[in-house]
């Protein structure tokens, strides 16, 4: 769709040195942005530089980032899952329902993860077995999963989660470090190793760059994609556990619109929305950038819906600016 309009690229005759590559990388730029936001926020509000406030601020992004890591792999492989927020709603509803029948914390965790996996498998069957485009399938399951929550709950809410269940969303590991932060760090490391250090990760890149080529080089393309949808579902289940535990109640409208923020986080992290490239460290920094922006704006009493304007601008801006830059650079060199 876009190749007809692609501008001629300047082809260098040698590789840049390693240092230049690191400094001019997307991740470095993003890190500079994160530091700038941190500094600006410290001056803008006297409440920003406080360990406990900053610790609270991490809740803005930890749950979303858990999904974003799995989503990053999925998008690198050329697919997308828009149903993640609805999976959270369904998993949370299932956990709430289980509480009504007297389930304890271990059962709730198992149920949350299982519902996430099942939803992921449902998406995966439609995309890999029936060969349907993932955008349409997950727009459909986005309505379906949340629709089931609405059927079960209506305009009601589930409450009464066991006290020990609140550990996931409200507990602290040590001093200001929350359980969610620890989970975030653990999941980031797991996905970083999975994507950058394993054969599976190489297969993900190969599929995103050229699915047919990947198939002919012996990669089981459909199986890898199936696993990626399972992982995204599983991570949505983990996020559902954390979010439900933090809020202490379930409504069918829980996590509405979160899929947008997750996709924004992934794209901001430098993952190509068309697939084929991206990195986990980039997504980690993007998570911090988004968390710091929303926290800083929150301290300045900017309402949530206005923050969403910034998120929308960020999403379009991070893709538009580099393209504008190459267009200008190409025009100059031509």
């Amino acid at each position, binding site marked *: 769709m876009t190749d007809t309009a*692609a501008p001629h690229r300047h082809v260098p005759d040698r590789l840049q040195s390693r240092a230049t590559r690191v400094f001019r990388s997307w991740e470095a730029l993003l890190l500079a942005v994160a530091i700038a936001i941190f500094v600006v926020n410290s001056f803008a509000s006297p409440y920003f530089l406080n360990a406990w406030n900053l610790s609270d601020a991490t809740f803005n992004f930890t749950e979303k980032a858990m999904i974003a890591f799995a989503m990053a792999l999925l998008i690198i492989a050329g697919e997308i899952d828009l149903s993640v927020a609805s999976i959270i709603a369904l998993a949370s509803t299932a956990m709430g329902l289980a509480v009504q029948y007297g389930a304890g914390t271990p059962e709730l965790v198992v149920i949350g993860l299982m519902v996430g996996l099942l939803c992921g498998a449902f998406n995966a069957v439609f995309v890999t077995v029936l060969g349907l485009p993932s955008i349409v399938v997950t727009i459909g*399951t986005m309505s*379906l999963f949340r629709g089931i929550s609405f059927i079960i709950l209506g305009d009601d809410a589930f409450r009464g989660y066991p006290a020990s269940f609140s550990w996931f969303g409200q507990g602290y590991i040590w001093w200001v470090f929350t359980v969610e932060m620890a989970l975030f760090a653990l999941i980031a490391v797991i996905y970083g190793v999975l994507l950058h250090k394993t054969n599976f990760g190489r297969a993900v890149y190969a599929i995103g760059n050229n699915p047919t080529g990947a198939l002919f080089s012996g990669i089981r393309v459909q199986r890898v994609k199936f696993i990626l949808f399972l992982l995204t579902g599983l991570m949505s289940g983990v996020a559902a556990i954390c979010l439900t535990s933090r809020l202490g109640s379930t409504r069918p409208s829980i996590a509405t619109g979160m899929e947008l923020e997750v996709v924004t986080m992934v794209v901001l992290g430098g993952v190509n929305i068309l697939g084929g490239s991206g990195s986990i460290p980039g997504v980690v920094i993007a998570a911090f950038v988004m968390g710091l922006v929303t926290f800083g704006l929150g301290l300045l009493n900017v309402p949530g819906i206005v923050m969403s304007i910034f998120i929308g601008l960020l*999403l379009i801006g991070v893709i538009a600016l580099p393209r504008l830059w190459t267009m200008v650079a190409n025009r100059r060199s031509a």
Partner: protein
Amino acid sequence: MARFIPVRETILAGAIGLLLVLVASRFPGFVAPGNLANVLNDTAPLIILALGQMVVILTRCIDLSVAANLALTGMVVAMINVAMPDLPIPVILAIAVTLGALMGAINGILVWKLAIPPIVVTLGTMTIFRGIIFLISDGKWVNSHEMSPAFTAFPRAVILGLPVLSWAAIVTVIVFALMMARTPLGRSIFAVGGNPHAAVYTGIDVGRTQFLAFVISGALAGLTGYLWVARYAVAYVDIAGGFELEVVAACVIGGISIAGGIGSVGGAVLGAIFLGVVKNALPVINISPFWQLAISGSAILIAVAFNARAGRSKGRIILKSAEASS
């Protein structure tokens, strides 16, 4: 013979007929002409937006910002009406269509000139437009008593037994049927989606056609924005929240291929009517409206699975007959 009976549309029309018969078997009042006219009127915004979305999807794009565009235009014209109650309705209509087209043009420019994937662009503009409504309205509602009587009366005015809102949908359908079949723009929209490379070689500007598709979709969203706000006589930040999914659902159910190039005006209209009938039938047969989201989600999945199968077998048959003839 088979050429003249579009299979997909026939099946969908059959499904709608079956649905009506099932509901009518228990509640005959549902299929009374008066009630069917109400269902049509209720579905009119969906029909109009589905046609705009169809054009966009045919060119291999997607527009998720239509509902936010609708809400923003609706809020702007409502606020203009509060500030200047004497402004005639044609001016309001012109403002709504222009503003909507302008927002569509923003999407189109980003897709055309910067080659940003349409799903990213419209996800972004969707939140931006919603946010702007909050900024300009300060989160407040514009209520019916603040709007002028002429403003709210227009979509309800009855001409030849049907309200203007229904007529707006009917006229849009006719214009689109003519545009898609009889104008260079309509044909190039199909060409761009069917095979962009071939379209370039026949002298069609792919990016420009996609841009125009977004402008059309935006203009229709703007028009619907005014009709919606005037009909329900209220404007606030969240009107038509999530409506973009219903619009995409109508297209997918109507057999518009998300891969572009395949679809018809009849299909999009039938897809919208199917969802409209389901929505209106649920309360009648005493099923909670909370079922609606799950039903439209399932309908999308069934429709896309079904259409993919139909498309695949069709491709094989063409190849076979080509081999046989050569």
